């Protein structure tokens, strides 16, 4: 327990000292993970809703596939994307390997199935409830998808937070496609892994505490935003 207290003090010191390097790492972590979450939501939520109310051959297979991909190991995703983005790979010409963009792509790739699967379930439940109503209004499918997504926005915010949680906690894929390059692609999780490797466990634990505080901060902000939005549009 003594170690924990020492790390807590170190974490407080790091934050209060306003260390520029730490600030850079924290803002990169937040930036890429929020970017990936937005991107995955923009792609995954409409797709999930379409899976919920669409009726076409292969739908059940797709649903099972997305549910299964929620458990995709991140090193597998990392390896796959590395082979794609490597100079010798099909997308090598884009020069994206070892850039923050590569991290955003990897995180999007990892959390999109989660967002599709959870959205699909939420919208399917809502569709059961409002199907008759929407039909009687003569709404077309695209319109119905948009309406259901908008009406379910408060429930869907938890889907976004789940995605963000997995994105910012991610280390395996980020290490492979980002390369943990100091000042370029070094994020919170890869820094923690590096300091653990150096045997500097107090610093690694202090950084972990900062990461946890950060995730809590984002969730708190989302909760406040949700409460404010509910008052306004509720």
């Amino acid at each position: 327990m003594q170690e924990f207290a020492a790390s807590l003090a170190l974490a407080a010191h790091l934050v209060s000292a306003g260390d520029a390097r730490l600030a850079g790492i924290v803002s990169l972590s937040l930036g890429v993970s929020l970017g990936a979450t937005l991107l995955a939501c923009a792609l995954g939520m409409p797709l999930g809703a379409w899976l919920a109310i669409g009726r076409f051959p292969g739908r059940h297979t797709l649903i099972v596939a997305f549910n299964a991909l929620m458990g995709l190991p991140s090193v597998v995703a990392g390896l796959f994307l590395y082979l794609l983005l490597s100079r010798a790979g099909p997308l090598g010409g884009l020069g994206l390997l070892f850039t923050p963009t590569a991290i955003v792509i990897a995180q999007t790739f990892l959390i999109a199935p989660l967002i599709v699967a959870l959205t699909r379930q939420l919208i399917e439940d809502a569709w059961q409830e409002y199907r008759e109503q929407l039909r009687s209004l003569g709404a077309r499918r695209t319109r119905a998808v948009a309406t259901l997504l908008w009406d379910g926005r408060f429930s869907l915010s938890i889907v976004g937070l789940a995605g963000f949680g997995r994105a910012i906690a991610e280390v395996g894929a980020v290490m492979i496609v980002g390369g943990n390059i100091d000042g370029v692609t070094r994020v919170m999780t890869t820094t923690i892994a590096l300091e653990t490797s150096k045997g500097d466990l107090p610093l690694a634990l202090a950084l972990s505490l900062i990461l946890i505080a950060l995730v809590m901060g984002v969730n708190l902000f989302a909760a406040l935003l949700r409460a404010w939005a509910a008052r306004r549009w509720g």
Partner: protein
Amino acid sequence: MQVLDRLRRAILLAALSLFAVAGAAAGERFITVASTTSTEQSGLFDYLLPKFTQASGIKVRVVALGTGQALDLARRGDADVVFVHDQAAEEKFVAAGDGLRRQPVMYNDFILVGPKDDPAQAAGQDIAEGLRRIAAARAPFVSRGDKSGTHAAELRYWQAAGIDLDAIKGPWYRDTGSGMGAALNTAAALDAYLLADRGTWLNFRNRGKLSILIAGDRRLFNQYGVILVNPARHPEVKAADGQRFIDWLVAAAGQQAIAAYRIGGESVFFPNAAE
């Protein structure tokens, strides 16, 4: 269609944020160096690279991996320069046309680390004899097992000890498949023996009961070399800037900087480009 507009706006916002992140890192003059966990985890690069950047205006982006993995990465054209420590593998890399010339930069030494009370009585100055005693006692031994330079060296020493590892491997020999630091953490937790490079050891904080048991055997010599990835094979390689980094490393400025890097007053790497 207000709802669809909102969705469209959200998608646009997401796309914009992606480009903002991508743009932040662009427009900088840099080279990518594939190197080893030992050079990074010893803290050498933190000390050395800012000096080169100051002299040249070129930033150095280091991807730290085991030597085998670093060479693989370079073979695919994902790095401009490799800076590693497994002479046999490096020469193979150059012979296959993946790299241009291999130049020696610096050396340090491997050390055998183990629990202070040394149950296998391995301590001394003879690495082969030490390993024989560890194997005879079946004392816990942690291996990197990741095709790194240190792993390649470890396998050479088992061979020098006349021990057929495959024949006597048992639960006492733990193949961890991990980097130097992670392997040290494992050994500290298990009170096990392991082969480490001195640089990482000096910078390593979580030592537990471990201490240096064997050092100074001439066979424990650990040479680092630097190679420019062949631009004829990978046209994207930044040959001019990469060569400039290599030239700086082997010239007086780089060599003096390497010699000046110390941890707790102790030299970590010894420049030997001229030899």
